[in-house]
Protein backbone atom coordinates (compact mmCIF):
# COMPACT_ATOMS: atom_id res chain seq x y z
CA UNK A 1 0.00 0.00 0.00
CA UNK A 2 1.70 3.11 -1.18
CA UNK A 3 1.04 6.49 0.31
CA UNK A 4 -2.55 6.93 -0.80
CA UNK A 5 -4.14 10.33 -0.90
CA UNK A 6 -7.82 11.03 -0.94
CA UNK A 7 -8.39 13.36 -3.82
CA UNK A 8 -8.79 13.63 -7.57
CA UNK A 9 -9.78 10.50 -9.46
CA UNK A 10 -9.75 8.28 -6.41
CA UNK A 11 -12.22 10.47 -4.55
CA UNK A 12 -14.57 10.64 -7.53
CA UNK A 13 -14.48 6.91 -8.03
CA UNK A 14 -15.31 6.44 -4.36
CA UNK A 15 -18.22 8.86 -4.54
CA UNK A 16 -19.48 7.26 -7.76
CA UNK A 17 -19.32 3.70 -6.41
CA UNK A 18 -21.18 4.65 -3.23
CA UNK A 19 -23.81 6.51 -5.28
CA UNK A 20 -24.36 3.54 -7.57
CA UNK A 21 -24.61 1.26 -4.55
CA UNK A 22 -27.24 3.51 -2.96
CA UNK A 23 -29.25 3.73 -6.19
CA UNK A 24 -29.40 -0.05 -6.54
CA UNK A 25 -30.34 -0.38 -2.92
CA UNK A 26 -33.14 2.19 -3.28
CA UNK A 27 -34.52 0.47 -6.39
CA UNK A 28 -34.30 -2.91 -4.70
CA UNK A 29 -36.07 -1.74 -1.58
CA UNK A 30 -38.81 -0.05 -3.56
CA UNK A 31 -39.48 -3.31 -5.34
CA UNK A 32 -42.10 -3.94 -2.66
CA UNK A 33 -44.02 -1.02 -4.15
CA UNK A 34 -43.69 -1.66 -7.89
CA UNK A 35 -43.25 -5.41 -7.75
CA UNK A 36 -46.45 -6.74 -6.16
CA UNK A 37 -46.24 -10.17 -4.60
CA UNK A 38 -49.59 -10.92 -6.27
CA UNK A 39 -47.89 -10.71 -9.64
CA UNK A 40 -46.22 -13.92 -8.75
CA UNK A 41 -49.32 -15.64 -7.36
CA UNK A 42 -48.96 -18.43 -9.91
CA UNK A 43 -45.40 -19.02 -8.77
CA UNK A 44 -46.53 -19.15 -5.16
CA UNK A 45 -49.25 -21.65 -5.98
CA UNK A 46 -46.78 -23.78 -7.78
CA UNK A 47 -44.38 -23.70 -4.83
CA UNK A 48 -47.16 -24.53 -2.37
CA UNK A 49 -48.22 -27.47 -4.56
CA UNK A 50 -44.78 -29.00 -4.18
CA UNK A 51 -44.87 -28.55 -0.41
CA UNK A 52 -43.42 -25.05 -0.14
CA UNK A 53 -45.47 -23.43 2.55
CA UNK A 54 -43.22 -20.70 3.78
CA UNK A 55 -41.41 -17.84 2.23
CA UNK A 56 -37.82 -19.08 2.42
CA UNK A 57 -36.32 -16.64 -0.01
CA UNK A 58 -34.72 -13.40 1.09
CA UNK A 59 -36.26 -10.32 -0.40
CA UNK A 60 -34.47 -7.01 -0.57
CA UNK A 61 -37.89 -5.33 -0.39
CA UNK A 62 -37.85 -6.18 3.32
CA UNK A 63 -34.85 -3.92 3.85
CA UNK A 64 -35.60 -0.24 4.46
CA UNK A 65 -34.65 1.99 1.54
CA UNK A 66 -31.79 4.48 1.87
CA UNK A 67 -34.22 7.39 1.80
CA UNK A 68 -36.13 5.92 4.73
CA UNK A 69 -32.85 5.32 6.54
CA UNK A 70 -31.86 8.91 5.90
CA UNK A 71 -35.15 10.12 7.36
CA UNK A 72 -34.63 7.93 10.43
CA UNK A 73 -31.13 9.28 10.71
CA UNK A 74 -32.49 12.82 10.63
CA UNK A 75 -34.62 11.93 13.63
CA UNK A 76 -31.74 10.62 15.74
CA UNK A 77 -29.07 13.06 14.58
CA UNK A 78 -29.88 15.50 17.39
CA UNK A 79 -30.60 12.74 19.86
CA UNK A 80 -28.20 12.60 22.81
CA UNK A 81 -28.64 8.83 23.13
CA UNK A 82 -27.48 8.21 19.56
CA UNK A 83 -24.31 10.22 19.99
CA UNK A 84 -23.78 8.68 23.35
CA UNK A 85 -23.81 5.29 21.62
CA UNK A 86 -21.03 6.55 19.36
CA UNK A 87 -19.14 7.87 22.31
CA UNK A 88 -19.45 4.64 24.31
CA UNK A 89 -18.39 2.41 21.41
CA UNK A 90 -15.46 4.66 20.50
CA UNK A 91 -14.36 4.74 24.11
CA UNK A 92 -14.47 0.94 24.36
CA UNK A 93 -12.67 0.46 21.07
CA UNK A 94 -10.01 2.99 22.01
CA UNK A 95 -9.58 1.53 25.48
CA UNK A 96 -9.35 -2.06 24.29
CA UNK A 97 -7.14 -1.16 21.36
CA UNK A 98 -4.69 0.93 23.36
CA UNK A 99 -4.51 -1.76 26.04
CA UNK A 100 -3.80 -4.32 23.31
CA UNK A 101 -1.00 -2.14 21.91
CA UNK A 102 0.51 -1.36 25.29
CA UNK A 103 0.53 -5.00 26.36
CA UNK A 104 0.78 -6.71 22.97
CA UNK A 105 3.79 -4.92 21.48
CA UNK A 106 6.19 -5.48 24.41
CA UNK A 107 4.86 -9.02 24.86
CA UNK A 108 5.39 -9.82 21.18
CA UNK A 109 8.86 -8.29 21.20
CA UNK A 110 9.81 -10.23 24.31
CA UNK A 111 8.67 -13.49 22.72
CA UNK A 112 10.52 -12.63 19.53
CA UNK A 113 13.89 -11.82 21.10
CA UNK A 114 14.02 -14.17 24.06
CA UNK A 115 14.03 -17.93 23.51
CA UNK A 116 13.13 -18.72 27.10
CA UNK A 117 10.22 -16.31 27.10
CA UNK A 118 9.08 -17.76 23.79
CA UNK A 119 9.26 -21.30 25.14
CA UNK A 120 7.20 -20.37 28.18
CA UNK A 121 4.79 -17.85 26.70
CA UNK A 122 4.03 -19.01 23.20
CA UNK A 123 2.30 -22.35 23.92
CA UNK A 124 -0.18 -20.70 26.29
CA UNK A 125 -0.70 -17.91 23.80
CA UNK A 126 -1.31 -20.36 20.97
CA UNK A 127 -3.87 -22.33 22.98
CA UNK A 128 -5.80 -19.20 23.91
CA UNK A 129 -5.56 -17.58 20.48
CA UNK A 130 -8.07 -19.78 18.61
CA UNK A 131 -10.76 -18.98 21.19
CA UNK A 132 -12.90 -16.29 19.57
CA UNK A 133 -13.12 -13.14 21.68
CA UNK A 134 -16.89 -13.50 21.79
CA UNK A 135 -16.56 -16.89 23.47
CA UNK A 136 -14.96 -14.96 26.30
CA UNK A 137 -18.07 -12.85 26.91
CA UNK A 138 -19.76 -15.05 29.54
CA UNK A 139 -16.52 -15.78 31.36
CA UNK A 140 -15.50 -12.15 31.35
CA UNK A 141 -18.90 -11.03 32.67
CA UNK A 142 -18.37 -13.40 35.57
CA UNK A 143 -14.74 -12.41 36.05
CA UNK A 144 -14.79 -8.64 35.73
CA UNK A 145 -16.58 -6.66 38.42
CA UNK A 146 -18.32 -4.28 36.02
CA UNK A 147 -19.98 -4.79 32.69
CA UNK A 148 -17.88 -2.01 31.23
CA UNK A 149 -14.66 -3.80 32.11
CA UNK A 150 -15.91 -7.07 30.69
CA UNK A 151 -16.70 -5.40 27.33
CA UNK A 152 -13.34 -3.62 27.34
CA UNK A 153 -11.61 -6.92 28.04
CA UNK A 154 -13.28 -8.70 25.15
CA UNK A 155 -12.45 -5.77 22.89
CA UNK A 156 -8.85 -5.93 24.06
CA UNK A 157 -8.65 -9.62 23.17
CA UNK A 158 -9.84 -8.90 19.64
CA UNK A 159 -6.82 -6.73 18.88
CA UNK A 160 -4.29 -8.36 21.20
CA UNK A 161 -3.72 -11.65 19.35
CA UNK A 162 -3.36 -10.02 15.97
CA UNK A 163 -0.90 -7.45 17.25
CA UNK A 164 1.22 -10.03 19.07
CA UNK A 165 1.33 -12.42 16.11
CA UNK A 166 2.34 -9.59 13.80
CA UNK A 167 5.03 -8.32 16.15
CA UNK A 168 6.55 -11.78 16.52
CA UNK A 169 6.41 -12.42 12.77
CA UNK A 170 7.79 -8.99 11.96
CA UNK A 171 10.69 -9.19 14.40
CA UNK A 172 11.56 -12.69 13.23
CA UNK A 173 11.65 -11.75 9.57
CA UNK A 174 14.26 -9.02 10.00
CA UNK A 175 17.20 -9.89 7.77
CA UNK A 176 20.17 -11.41 9.66
CA UNK A 177 22.49 -9.15 7.67
CA UNK A 178 21.14 -6.11 9.53
CA UNK A 179 22.10 -7.69 12.84
CA UNK A 180 25.51 -8.70 11.53
CA UNK A 181 26.16 -5.25 10.10
CA UNK A 182 25.06 -3.52 13.30
CA UNK A 183 27.15 -5.89 15.41
CA UNK A 184 30.24 -5.31 13.26
CA UNK A 185 29.80 -1.58 13.64
CA UNK A 186 29.93 -1.87 17.40
CA UNK A 187 26.27 -1.90 18.43
CA UNK A 188 25.43 -3.18 21.89
CA UNK A 189 22.46 -5.50 22.46
CA UNK A 190 20.39 -2.53 23.52
CA UNK A 191 21.41 -0.59 20.38
CA UNK A 192 20.43 -3.56 18.26
CA UNK A 193 17.06 -3.76 19.97
CA UNK A 194 16.40 -0.04 19.69
CA UNK A 195 17.84 0.66 16.25
CA UNK A 196 17.29 -2.60 14.38
CA UNK A 197 14.56 -4.70 15.96
CA UNK A 198 12.22 -1.84 16.82
CA UNK A 199 12.25 -0.03 13.45
CA UNK A 200 12.43 -3.36 11.64
CA UNK A 201 9.25 -4.50 13.36
CA UNK A 202 7.43 -1.20 12.98
CA UNK A 203 5.83 -2.00 9.59
CA UNK A 204 4.39 -5.21 11.05
CA UNK A 205 3.16 -3.33 14.10
CA UNK A 206 1.33 -0.93 11.78
CA UNK A 207 -0.25 -3.78 9.82
CA UNK A 208 -1.15 -5.67 12.99
CA UNK A 209 -2.74 -2.56 14.47
CA UNK A 210 -4.83 -1.89 11.38
CA UNK A 211 -6.15 -5.46 11.33
CA UNK A 212 -6.56 -5.40 15.10
CA UNK A 213 -8.55 -2.18 14.93
CA UNK A 214 -10.97 -3.80 12.48
CA UNK A 215 -11.46 -6.79 14.76
CA UNK A 216 -11.96 -4.44 17.71
CA UNK A 217 -14.98 -2.88 16.01
CA UNK A 218 -16.44 -6.27 15.18
CA UNK A 219 -16.01 -7.45 18.72
CA UNK A 220 -17.21 -4.35 20.53
CA UNK A 221 -20.49 -4.29 18.66
CA UNK A 222 -21.20 -7.95 19.30
CA UNK A 223 -20.21 -7.64 22.95
CA UNK A 224 -22.54 -4.66 23.34
CA UNK A 225 -25.40 -6.59 21.77
CA UNK A 226 -24.87 -9.42 24.21
CA UNK A 227 -24.13 -7.56 27.38
CA UNK A 228 -24.42 -3.85 26.64
CA UNK A 229 -27.89 -2.98 27.78
CA UNK A 230 -29.08 -0.02 29.74
CA UNK A 231 -29.34 2.67 27.14
CA UNK A 232 -32.42 3.62 25.22
CA UNK A 233 -32.81 6.39 22.75
CA UNK A 234 -32.72 9.50 24.88
CA UNK A 235 -30.91 7.75 27.70
CA UNK A 236 -27.23 8.23 28.46
CA UNK A 237 -26.01 5.11 30.21
CA UNK A 238 -24.41 1.88 28.94
CA UNK A 239 -25.36 1.50 25.32
CA UNK A 240 -22.99 1.72 22.45
CA UNK A 241 -23.69 1.31 18.75
CA UNK A 242 -24.10 -2.45 19.11
CA UNK A 243 -26.81 -1.98 21.67
CA UNK A 244 -28.32 0.79 19.59
CA UNK A 245 -28.82 -1.73 16.78
CA UNK A 246 -30.14 -4.40 19.08
CA UNK A 247 -32.50 -1.96 20.76
CA UNK A 248 -33.79 -0.80 17.38
CA UNK A 249 -34.43 -4.39 16.40
CA UNK A 250 -36.28 -5.13 19.62
CA UNK A 251 -38.23 -1.91 19.20
CA UNK A 252 -39.11 -2.79 15.61
CA UNK A 253 -37.48 0.29 14.16
CA UNK A 254 -35.87 -1.30 11.15
CA UNK A 255 -34.63 1.94 9.59
CA UNK A 256 -32.76 2.63 12.79
CA UNK A 257 -31.00 -0.74 12.56
CA UNK A 258 -29.48 0.35 9.29
CA UNK A 259 -28.61 3.74 10.78
CA UNK A 260 -26.64 1.89 13.44
CA UNK A 261 -24.96 -0.37 10.91
CA UNK A 262 -23.84 2.51 8.72
CA UNK A 263 -22.65 4.40 11.78
CA UNK A 264 -20.35 1.50 12.59
CA UNK A 265 -19.14 1.44 9.01
CA UNK A 266 -18.29 5.13 9.19
CA UNK A 267 -16.63 4.77 12.59
CA UNK A 268 -14.54 1.84 11.37
CA UNK A 269 -13.55 3.72 8.22
CA UNK A 270 -12.47 6.78 10.19
CA UNK A 271 -10.37 4.71 12.59
CA UNK A 272 -8.70 2.81 9.75
CA UNK A 273 -7.85 6.04 7.93
CA UNK A 274 -6.46 7.59 11.09
CA UNK A 275 -4.36 4.52 11.73
CA UNK A 276 -3.14 4.40 8.15
CA UNK A 277 -2.12 8.05 8.23
CA UNK A 278 -0.33 7.51 11.51
CA UNK A 279 1.26 4.35 10.13
CA UNK A 280 2.63 6.18 7.11
CA UNK A 281 4.03 8.85 9.34
CA UNK A 282 5.99 6.43 11.51
CA UNK A 283 7.32 4.36 8.57
CA UNK A 284 8.34 7.03 6.06
CA UNK A 285 10.78 4.71 4.28
CA UNK A 286 7.96 2.49 3.07
CA UNK A 287 6.31 5.26 1.08
CA UNK A 288 8.84 4.98 -1.71
CA UNK A 289 8.46 1.43 -2.81
Amino acid at each position, binding site marked *: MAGRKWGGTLLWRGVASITVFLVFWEIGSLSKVWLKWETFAWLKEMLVSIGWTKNYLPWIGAVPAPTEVLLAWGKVIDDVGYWHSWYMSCLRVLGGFIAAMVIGIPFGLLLAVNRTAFGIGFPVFEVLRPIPPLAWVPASIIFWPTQELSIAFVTFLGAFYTIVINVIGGARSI*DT*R*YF*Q*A*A*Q*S*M*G*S*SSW*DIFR*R*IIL*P*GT*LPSIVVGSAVGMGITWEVVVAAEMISGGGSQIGGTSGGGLGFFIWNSYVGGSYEQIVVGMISIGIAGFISSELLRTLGHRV*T*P*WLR*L*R
Partner: protein
Amino acid sequence: MPSATAVTRGAIKIDDVVKIYDPEGAAVMAVDHCSLDIAAGEICMIVGPSGCGKTTLLNAIAGFHEITSGRILLDGEVLCSTEKPKAEPGSDRIVVFQNGALFPWKTNLENVAFGPIMQGKLSRVEAHEKALSMMADAGLSGVEHNYPGEVSSGMRRRVEIVRALMNDPKVLLLDEPYRALDSLTKSVMHEALLEIYYRNKVTIFFITHDLEEAIFLGHKVAIMTTRPCKPKKVLEVDIPHPRDYSVLTSKRFRELIEETNEAVHEEALKAFAAGEKEG
Protein backbone atom coordinates in the same frame (compact mmCIF):
# COMPACT_ATOMS: atom_id res chain seq x y z
CA MET B 1 52.41 -2.67 -6.06
CA PRO B 2 53.74 0.69 -4.99
CA SER B 3 50.37 1.90 -3.81
CA ALA B 4 49.96 -0.91 -1.33
CA THR B 5 53.26 -0.44 0.45
CA ALA B 6 52.16 2.68 2.33
CA VAL B 7 49.58 0.77 4.34
CA THR B 8 50.83 -0.83 7.52
CA ARG B 9 47.71 -2.46 8.89
CA GLY B 10 45.19 -4.99 7.69
CA ALA B 11 47.38 -7.97 6.83
CA ILE B 12 45.33 -11.15 6.86
CA LYS B 13 46.80 -14.60 7.25
CA ILE B 14 44.50 -17.50 6.60
CA ASP B 15 46.30 -20.54 7.92
CA ASP B 16 45.14 -24.06 7.15
CA VAL B 17 41.48 -23.28 7.76
CA VAL B 18 38.95 -26.09 7.59
CA LYS B 19 35.21 -25.66 7.82
CA ILE B 20 32.92 -28.64 8.00
CA TYR B 21 29.20 -28.06 8.12
CA ASP B 22 27.52 -30.79 10.04
CA PRO B 23 23.80 -30.64 9.55
CA GLU B 24 22.40 -33.81 11.15
CA GLY B 25 25.55 -35.83 10.88
CA ALA B 26 25.97 -35.39 7.13
CA ALA B 27 29.34 -33.68 7.24
CA VAL B 28 29.88 -31.31 4.33
CA MET B 29 33.33 -29.87 3.89
CA ALA B 30 33.02 -26.29 2.78
CA VAL B 31 36.64 -25.14 3.22
CA ASP B 32 39.52 -27.59 2.91
CA HIS B 33 42.87 -26.70 4.48
CA CYS B 34 42.85 -23.26 2.97
CA SER B 35 45.88 -21.00 3.37
CA LEU B 36 46.19 -17.52 1.94
CA ASP B 37 48.24 -14.45 2.77
CA ILE B 38 46.91 -11.00 2.08
CA ALA B 39 49.25 -8.07 2.52
CA ALA B 40 48.21 -4.87 4.26
CA GLY B 41 46.40 -2.55 1.90
CA GLU B 42 46.11 -5.14 -0.81
CA ILE B 43 43.05 -5.78 -2.91
CA CYS B 44 42.67 -9.54 -2.89
CA MET B 45 40.07 -10.96 -5.21
CA ILE B 46 38.61 -14.36 -4.39
CA VAL B 47 37.27 -15.99 -7.54
CA GLY B 48 35.30 -19.20 -7.59
CA PRO B 49 32.06 -20.76 -8.71
CA SER B 50 28.89 -19.93 -6.80
CA GLY B 51 28.48 -21.93 -3.65
CA CYS B 52 32.13 -22.97 -3.47
CA GLY B 53 32.63 -21.80 0.09
CA LYS B 54 34.07 -18.35 -0.49
CA THR B 55 31.42 -16.74 1.66
CA THR B 56 32.15 -19.23 4.43
CA LEU B 57 35.67 -17.88 4.51
CA LEU B 58 34.43 -14.30 4.60
CA ASN B 59 32.00 -15.08 7.42
CA ALA B 60 34.85 -16.63 9.41
CA ILE B 61 36.97 -13.48 9.06
CA ALA B 62 34.01 -11.24 9.91
CA GLY B 63 33.19 -13.36 12.96
CA PHE B 64 29.71 -14.39 11.84
CA HIS B 65 30.47 -18.11 11.69
CA GLU B 66 32.81 -20.57 13.35
CA ILE B 67 35.66 -22.45 11.72
CA THR B 68 36.36 -26.12 12.38
CA SER B 69 40.14 -25.91 12.56
CA GLY B 70 43.10 -23.80 11.50
CA ARG B 71 43.42 -20.10 12.32
CA ILE B 72 42.97 -16.67 10.87
CA LEU B 73 45.22 -13.78 11.90
CA LEU B 74 44.80 -10.07 11.43
CA ASP B 75 48.07 -8.15 11.78
CA GLY B 76 49.55 -11.05 13.70
CA GLU B 77 46.69 -11.29 16.16
CA VAL B 78 44.60 -14.44 16.19
CA LEU B 79 41.00 -13.73 15.17
CA CYS B 80 39.90 -17.31 15.38
CA SER B 81 41.54 -20.70 15.71
CA THR B 82 40.79 -24.30 16.49
CA GLU B 83 40.59 -23.36 20.20
CA LYS B 84 38.46 -20.24 19.65
CA PRO B 85 36.45 -21.11 16.56
CA LYS B 86 34.47 -17.89 16.27
CA ALA B 87 36.03 -14.45 15.89
CA GLU B 88 34.49 -11.43 17.60
CA PRO B 89 32.80 -9.25 14.99
CA GLY B 90 34.40 -5.84 15.10
CA SER B 91 34.59 -2.50 13.37
CA ASP B 92 38.09 -3.33 12.07
CA ARG B 93 36.49 -5.78 9.62
CA ILE B 94 33.38 -4.47 7.90
CA VAL B 95 31.31 -6.51 5.46
CA VAL B 96 29.54 -5.14 2.43
CA PHE B 97 26.87 -7.75 1.80
CA GLN B 98 25.84 -9.38 -1.44
CA ASN B 99 22.40 -7.86 -1.59
CA GLY B 100 23.23 -4.89 0.55
CA ALA B 101 22.44 -4.37 4.19
CA LEU B 102 21.79 -0.66 4.47
CA PHE B 103 19.13 -0.14 7.11
CA PRO B 104 16.04 0.75 5.08
CA TRP B 105 14.56 2.77 7.94
CA LYS B 106 17.51 5.12 8.12
CA THR B 107 18.39 7.76 5.55
CA ASN B 108 21.61 7.29 3.61
CA LEU B 109 23.29 9.87 5.83
CA GLU B 110 22.11 8.16 9.03
CA ASN B 111 23.32 4.86 7.65
CA VAL B 112 26.76 6.23 6.87
CA ALA B 113 27.06 7.94 10.26
CA PHE B 114 25.88 4.82 12.14
CA GLY B 115 29.21 3.15 12.95
CA PRO B 116 31.15 5.96 14.64
CA ILE B 117 28.09 6.88 16.72
CA MET B 118 27.65 3.27 17.84
CA GLN B 119 31.31 3.00 18.78
CA GLY B 120 31.13 6.27 20.65
CA LYS B 121 34.00 7.63 18.56
CA LEU B 122 32.11 10.66 17.31
CA SER B 123 29.12 12.63 18.50
CA ARG B 124 26.03 12.60 16.32
CA VAL B 125 26.84 16.03 14.91
CA GLU B 126 30.48 15.16 14.21
CA ALA B 127 29.52 11.85 12.64
CA HIS B 128 27.01 13.56 10.35
CA GLU B 129 29.61 16.13 9.35
CA LYS B 130 32.16 13.48 8.51
CA ALA B 131 29.56 11.38 6.72
CA LEU B 132 28.53 14.36 4.60
CA SER B 133 32.08 15.04 3.51
CA MET B 134 32.83 11.38 2.78
CA MET B 135 29.63 11.06 0.79
CA ALA B 136 30.52 14.17 -1.17
CA ASP B 137 33.94 12.67 -1.95
CA ALA B 138 32.29 9.50 -3.19
CA GLY B 139 29.97 11.42 -5.51
CA LEU B 140 26.96 10.90 -3.30
CA SER B 141 25.96 14.52 -2.82
CA GLY B 142 22.24 15.03 -3.11
CA VAL B 143 21.08 11.66 -1.82
CA GLU B 144 22.09 12.14 1.81
CA HIS B 145 18.56 12.63 3.05
CA ASN B 146 16.96 10.01 0.87
CA TYR B 147 16.18 6.57 2.14
CA PRO B 148 18.18 3.72 0.56
CA GLY B 149 14.98 2.55 -1.13
CA GLU B 150 14.82 5.81 -3.05
CA VAL B 151 18.15 5.53 -4.86
CA SER B 152 19.47 3.15 -7.51
CA SER B 153 21.09 -0.12 -6.52
CA GLY B 154 24.48 1.11 -7.75
CA MET B 155 24.13 4.17 -5.55
CA ARG B 156 23.16 1.97 -2.60
CA ARG B 157 26.34 -0.09 -2.96
CA ARG B 158 28.41 3.05 -2.90
CA VAL B 159 26.60 4.30 0.19
CA GLU B 160 27.27 0.96 1.84
CA ILE B 161 30.96 1.08 1.01
CA VAL B 162 31.20 4.59 2.41
CA ARG B 163 29.31 3.41 5.50
CA ALA B 164 31.91 0.67 5.91
CA LEU B 165 34.82 3.09 5.49
CA MET B 166 33.39 5.45 8.11
CA ASN B 167 34.35 2.81 10.68
CA ASP B 168 37.98 3.23 9.66
CA PRO B 169 38.31 -0.54 9.18
CA LYS B 170 41.54 -2.41 8.59
CA VAL B 171 39.78 -4.73 6.20
CA LEU B 172 36.83 -4.34 3.90
CA LEU B 173 35.06 -7.61 3.21
CA LEU B 174 33.05 -7.42 0.00
CA ASP B 175 30.77 -10.33 -0.79
CA GLU B 176 29.94 -10.12 -4.50
CA PRO B 177 28.71 -6.58 -4.01
CA TYR B 178 28.08 -5.95 -7.68
CA ARG B 179 26.47 -9.25 -8.52
CA ALA B 180 22.99 -7.86 -8.98
CA LEU B 181 24.10 -4.88 -11.06
CA ASP B 182 23.95 -4.62 -14.83
CA SER B 183 27.31 -4.54 -16.60
CA LEU B 184 27.22 -0.81 -17.36
CA THR B 185 26.54 0.11 -13.75
CA LYS B 186 29.17 -2.40 -12.76
CA SER B 187 31.88 -0.70 -14.80
CA VAL B 188 31.02 2.63 -13.18
CA MET B 189 31.09 0.97 -9.78
CA HIS B 190 34.53 -0.54 -10.40
CA GLU B 191 36.09 2.81 -11.10
CA ALA B 192 34.22 4.34 -8.18
CA LEU B 193 35.52 1.62 -5.87
CA LEU B 194 39.10 2.16 -7.04
CA GLU B 195 38.71 5.90 -6.57
CA ILE B 196 37.46 5.38 -3.03
CA TYR B 197 40.26 2.89 -2.44
CA TYR B 198 42.98 5.26 -3.62
CA ARG B 199 41.69 7.80 -1.14
CA ASN B 200 41.27 5.41 1.80
CA LYS B 201 43.75 2.59 1.56
CA VAL B 202 42.44 -0.49 3.30
CA THR B 203 42.87 -4.18 2.74
CA ILE B 204 40.06 -5.43 0.54
CA PHE B 205 38.86 -9.00 0.55
CA PHE B 206 36.60 -9.13 -2.49
CA ILE B 207 34.55 -12.17 -3.44
CA THR B 208 33.41 -12.48 -7.02
CA HIS B 209 32.85 -15.02 -9.76
CA ASP B 210 33.69 -12.56 -12.48
CA LEU B 211 37.28 -13.09 -13.62
CA GLU B 212 37.53 -9.79 -15.52
CA GLU B 213 36.35 -7.90 -12.47
CA ALA B 214 38.92 -9.75 -10.38
CA ILE B 215 41.89 -8.98 -12.61
CA PHE B 216 40.81 -5.41 -13.22
CA LEU B 217 40.54 -4.57 -9.52
CA GLY B 218 42.91 -6.87 -7.68
CA HIS B 219 46.54 -6.81 -6.69
CA LYS B 220 46.11 -10.48 -6.12
CA VAL B 221 43.60 -12.94 -7.52
CA ALA B 222 43.00 -16.21 -5.72
CA ILE B 223 41.16 -18.72 -7.84
CA MET B 224 39.38 -21.15 -5.57
CA THR B 225 38.47 -24.76 -6.16
CA THR B 226 34.84 -25.66 -6.02
CA ARG B 227 33.58 -27.17 -2.79
CA PRO B 228 35.55 -27.83 -0.68
CA CYS B 229 37.13 -24.45 -1.17
CA LYS B 230 40.88 -23.75 -1.23
CA PRO B 231 43.16 -21.71 -3.48
CA LYS B 232 43.81 -23.47 -6.74
CA LYS B 233 45.95 -20.75 -8.24
CA VAL B 234 47.08 -17.42 -6.81
CA LEU B 235 47.91 -14.77 -9.34
CA GLU B 236 49.81 -11.55 -8.66
CA VAL B 237 48.43 -8.97 -11.07
CA ASP B 238 51.40 -6.95 -12.29
CA ILE B 239 49.37 -4.15 -13.85
CA PRO B 240 50.27 -1.02 -11.86
CA HIS B 241 47.71 0.90 -9.84
CA PRO B 242 46.10 3.38 -10.21
CA ARG B 243 44.12 1.72 -12.95
CA ASP B 244 41.28 2.91 -15.08
CA TYR B 245 39.14 1.36 -17.74
CA SER B 246 41.83 1.50 -20.41
CA VAL B 247 43.40 -1.47 -18.61
CA LEU B 248 40.61 -3.68 -19.93
CA THR B 249 41.86 -3.41 -23.47
CA SER B 250 45.56 -3.67 -22.63
CA LYS B 251 47.64 -6.62 -23.83
CA ARG B 252 48.76 -7.61 -20.34
CA PHE B 253 45.16 -7.75 -19.10
CA ARG B 254 44.22 -10.10 -21.93
CA GLU B 255 47.25 -12.28 -21.24
CA LEU B 256 46.32 -12.59 -17.57
CA ILE B 257 42.78 -13.52 -18.48
CA GLU B 258 44.08 -16.21 -20.79
CA GLU B 259 46.43 -17.48 -18.13
CA THR B 260 43.66 -17.93 -15.59
CA ASN B 261 40.58 -18.55 -17.64
CA GLU B 262 41.19 -22.23 -17.92
CA ALA B 263 41.56 -22.75 -14.17
CA VAL B 264 38.32 -20.88 -13.53
CA HIS B 265 36.49 -22.72 -16.27
CA GLU B 266 37.65 -26.07 -14.91
CA GLU B 267 36.22 -25.30 -11.50
CA ALA B 268 33.01 -23.98 -12.98
CA LEU B 269 32.57 -27.26 -14.85
CA LYS B 270 33.20 -29.22 -11.67
CA ALA B 271 30.72 -27.12 -9.78
CA PHE B 272 28.19 -27.57 -12.55
CA ALA B 273 28.71 -31.32 -12.56
CA ALA B 274 28.33 -31.45 -8.80
CA GLY B 275 25.03 -29.69 -9.24
CA GLU B 276 25.97 -26.80 -7.01
CA LYS B 277 23.18 -24.35 -6.61
CA GLU B 278 23.52 -20.61 -6.93
CA GLY B 279 24.39 -18.75 -3.77
